[in-house]
């Protein structure tokens, strides 16, 4: 299973895009930075983006290669195939501090936000 990473975006090869995923129209943006507006986007090659109702993203590369571009990170070349897109996750140790039922250090996993 081949995996690629561009910044906080992980692209992992999968056997196939789930059948119930719906095609995303418009620009092929895998993720966009909230504060800088920088985006991880496909700029070369033929590809389609799909989204599940849960929000999970998938990419299908139809051409021989597709180029993933970002303003700050180097390009990533993705060969033809199907991929699952994920944001890097981290742990929020401070969540629920004000809730007396939660123990200190309990925390919660959160997904990347930039």
């Amino acid at each position: 299973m081949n995996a690629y990473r561009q910044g906080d975006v992980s692209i992992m090869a999968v056997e196939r895009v789930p059948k119930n995923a719906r095609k995303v129209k418009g620009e092929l943006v895998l993720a966009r930075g909230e504060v800088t507006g920088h985006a991880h986007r496909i700029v070369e090659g033929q590809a389609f983006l799909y989204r599940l109702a849960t929000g999970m993203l998938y990419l299908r590369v139809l051409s021989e290669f597709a180029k993933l571009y970002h303003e700050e990170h180097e390009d990533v070349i993705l060969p033809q195939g199907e991929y699952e897109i994920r944001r890097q996750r981290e742990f929020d140790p401070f969540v629920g501090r004000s809730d007396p039922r939660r123990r200190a250090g309990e925390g919660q996993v959160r997904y990347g936000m930039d």
Partner: protein
Amino acid sequence: MGWTKRGVVRINKLTAKQEGQIIVFAEKWNRIARSTEPWDQEAVAAGIRRFYKAMGCRQLQRGRIHFTEGPIAAYNYATFKWEGSWERHPNFSKLDPSEWAIRCLLARTFEPAILKHVEDFMHRNIARSLSIRRVAQNGKNMPEGHSRGYFFGQADANWLAIVDYFATVHGNEHCQKLEGLIQAVQSCGFVGLMPEKIIFSNRPEVAKFDDQGRLHCEDGPAFICRQGWRWFYLAGVPIFEKYIKTPADDLKLAEILAEPNAEIRTAVLRKFGFQRLLATTHHRIISEAAGNALIEFKLKIGEHHNEYLRTLRLTWQDKTGAKETLLPVPRLARQFGEDCPENVNDCEQVRRWTLGWPKEALAVAET
């Protein structure tokens, strides 16, 4: 020239003269993006009239053109009633040419490699000013049934430079339609276009950038508009004023780890220095791999005493140089969830967990 599958001829090579013009346009638009000179109201209005004409929109009378000193006032004023607007102004949507739409049109004439070459140069060499997205965070909410106008400004310099280049040097007809907009943007701060009115705002009083053209100031606001609004930036990342005003020795690591936005965390760490924070905090390095480290901190947070927090210290190199950040990670196996790494004390295994990579995943490229 090369033949595509559809039999269309696309330009796949630039002449030396065309190549030389890229830097000329980049320099021109870099000056526009950084400019703090007062606006030229006549040039702005004339430019927008040209743009409306090129897009087949009805010209607005002089009384419908408004000028404001700052972007916040322009943004708050730039609303229009949605109902009936599109019927009365069917071509209005043509006034919103995005970078992506222009790229698609240019791809009919130029090979992707040529577009990428010009885009990369412009994006790397033109400063990024305050974007309307950032202004919107300080703006008022719209009344019900209203819509916001289209905004263009100095922050659009890098893609308008591409349009200007292809319009002037290559005579591309799609880009030439935007010449009026180009004229307007190079003469003011922001342009807001609505069906029944147009609003312009003046350029900023202060705009400070780092050597990579990102808004940046370590001891004050990086952007001050003429109405007095101030925005704080570190290396192109908008941050809270407290991170600028707090003396370096007073900043607590817990405050940085509580910041949910990874880019803000990275920018603040860069200002205060990771080593300085390490020196002032009880910590131990649990494991290290490939320049990254898994570190456990012993911190006093609020009423909780001696709490242990784990973070991954990640270091990497991107187009702008060396970077590092701290990524809070779970400490206990139950906190990782069902795909918990075999060894929660192994830096690389924990890093792969943050990316959602299973054990068998082979990392082909990481940038």
